[in-house]
């Protein structure tokens, strides 16, 4: 069983490394990911963010502007997911206290 686990892990690691070898180099201007326009010829979102983040929100940290303003719905979903996780933990784990007579108190 252990051997099978390690074999699966090694296989997965090999798959990841193979996939990573296909990524473009950092800052490569010819890579599709970094081009100013998408393959369909429309302007891409990252270049818009880089050009307009400070003008739109007067905030120097571009990442904050994207997370909280341009992608505000996404961050709202993240927060809701965390809240749901907390609620689930509360409902599953928080047990009702028993008093010495063995009766469950609310």
């Amino acid at each position, binding site marked *: 069983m252990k051997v099978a686990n390690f074999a699966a892990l090694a296989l997965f690691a090999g798959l990841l490394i193979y996939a990573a070898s296909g990524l473009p180099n950092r800052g490569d201007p010819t890579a599709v990911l970094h081009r100013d326009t998408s393959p369909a010829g429309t302007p891409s979102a990252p270049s818009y963010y880089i050009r307009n983040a400070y003008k*739109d929100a007067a905030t120097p940290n571009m990442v904050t502007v994207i997370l909280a303003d341009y992608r505000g719905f996404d961050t709202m979903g993240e927060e809701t997911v965390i809240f749901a996780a907390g609620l689930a933990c*509360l409902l599953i784990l*928080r047990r009702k206290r028993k008093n010495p007579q063995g009766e469950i108190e609310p």
Partner: protein
Amino acid sequence: MRDYESDDIVILVSRTLSPFIMLFALYVIFHGHYSPGGGFQGGTMLAAAVILIRLAAGMDIAQLQFPRALGMPLGAVGVLIYFGTGVAAMLGGGSFLDYAYLPLPGAAAALRSLGILFVEVGVGLAVVGILVSIYDDLLESGER
């Protein structure tokens, strides 16, 4: 946790360290406009400071600092701040979460900056409350 004994050195070090962790967490939240950071990261650090006191002094004494019942309400308040910011933008005439229409004086860009601040504070509060609440629940379920 039954045979738990508090130790003076551990309590002293945690008490000394905890306010500085909280201060740095607040810095991370409120300086998120200018440097890496924001609500999630700062909130996690605030929760770490609270949980440090819980670990060092025990659950009973730590109740004085952050009561067990406070976690989920604080999380709900954080989520409500986020949603409230979005709804306030709607009341101001824009679409949901469009901070430029917040009903406050100021230019659109400055209002967006302010809206981001509100949202980050909401996220930070929610993360503190919910992380501490999850810690308490796990601890309590292990006590049976």
